[in-house]
C-alpha cells in the first residue's frame, strides 16, 4: 500500500492503514473474502450431501449370500453424538479465543486456541476410529458400494476441512508467541474462527442428514 496518511472524521490521523485499509463497505477485504469463500463452500458441501442422499440406499451385502445392510445398521450413534458434541464445544472455545484476542488477553487467547485445536484433534481421531471400524472390521470399505463411497467422500471431505482448520489454529497459536497475532489484529483470529465455525455448521447438517435421518 502507498504511504498515504488517512484523516478520520474525528480529526485524528491513522498511521496503520497498511493493516486496516478503509473500504466502502466498512468491512475489511479479508473478512468479506472469507465470508464469500464460505458461501461458495456451501455449494461444495451441498453437492456432496446431495450425492450421499441419492446413493444412501445403494448398498450391497458385506459377503456373498448375506443380506445387504443399510448404513444405519453399522453406525454407532452414541459415539458419533459424542464426536458432534466435541466439535460443538470447539466452536465455543474458538469464539472465546476471538473474544480474548479482542480484549488483548494473550494468555487466555493461547489457551482457547490450544483447546480448540485439541478438541478438533479429538474429533478427527474419532473419525479415524469410525473409518477403521467400518472398513477394516465390518468390511465396508470405500469401494464396497455406492452408499459407502458417498459416505466416505462426504465425511472425508469434512474431516479434511477440520484437519486444515487444526493446522491454521496451530499456526495462529505460534504467531501469537511471535507477537504477530494479538489485539492489534484481532480480526485475523476472527477470520480463523469463521472458518472453524463453518466446519462446525457443516457437521451439524452432516450429522442430521447422514447419521440421524434413516
Amino acid at each position: 500500500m502507498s504511504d498515504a496518511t488517512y484523516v478520520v472524521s474525528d480529526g485524528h490521523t491513522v498511521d496503520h492503514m497498511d493493516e486496516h485499509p478503509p473500504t466502502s463497505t466498512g468491512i475489511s477485504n479479508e473478512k468479506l473474502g472469507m465470508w464469500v469463500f464460505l458461501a461458495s463452500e456451501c455449494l461444495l458441501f451441498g453437492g456432496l450431501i446431495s450425492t450421499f442422499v441419492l446413493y444412501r440406499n445403494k448398498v450391497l451385502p458385506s459377503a456373498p449370500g448375506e443380506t445387504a445392510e443399510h448404513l444405519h445398521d453399522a453406525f454407532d450413534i452414541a459415539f458419533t453424538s459424542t464426536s458432534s458434541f466435541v466439535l460443538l464445544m470447539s466452536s465455543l472455545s474458538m469464539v472465546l479465543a476471538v473474544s480474548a484476542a479482542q480484549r488483548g488477553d494473550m494468555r487466555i487467547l493461547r489457551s482457547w486456541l490450544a483447546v480448540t485445536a485439541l478438541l478438533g484433534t479429538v474429533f478427527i481421531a474419532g473419525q479415524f476410529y469410525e473409518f477403521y471400524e467400518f472398513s477394516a472390521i465390518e468390511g465396508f470399505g470405500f469401494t464396497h458400494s455406492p452408499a459407502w463411497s458417498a459416505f466416505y467422500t462426504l465425511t472425508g471431505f469434512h474431516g479434511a476441512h477440520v484437519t486444515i482448520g487444526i493446522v491454521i489454529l496451530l499456526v495462529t497459536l505460534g504467531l501469537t508467541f511471535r507477537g504477530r497475532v494479538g489485539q492489534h489484529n484481532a480480526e485475523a483470529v476472527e477470520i480463523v474462527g469463521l472458518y472453524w465455525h463453518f466446519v462446525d455448521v457443516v457437521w451439524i447438517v452432516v450429522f442430521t442428514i447422514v447419521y440421524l435421518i434413516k
Partner: protein
Amino acid sequence: MTDITVTPEAASGDHADDGHAHPTDALFVRTAVILAIITAFEVGWSYLPWWDGAHGLRSFIEISGLLIMMMAKFIIVANVFMHLKFDKPLLSWAFYFGFVLAVIVYMAVLTTFEIWSSGPPGFAP
C-alpha cells in the same frame, strides 16, 4: 502524501455496531448450552420408538423434526458464534445467499433424480 477522510468505523474496517451490543462471553456459554440441549433432543428424537418402521405422515414428522432442529442449530451458530447478528448485514446477505442458492440448486438436482418418489427410482442412479 494523500489525505482521505473516512469515518472511524470504516478506518477500523470492522466492529460495526449497527445499533447492536457487542456479545459477551456469558452469551457464548449460554449459546453453547442451548446447542448442546438441542443436540440431545435431536438424538433423543431419532431414538423414539414411534418411528420404528414409520412411513407416510409419521416419517414426515420424524424427518421434519430433525431438519427443524438442525436448522435451528445452524442459524444459532451462524448468528451468534460467527457474529452475523452483530455484524454488517452485508455479511449475512453474502453467506445466506450462498446457502439458499446451494439449497435451491441441489433440491432441483434431487427432484430431477426423482428422489421424492416413493415408487421405482426413475432416473435415480
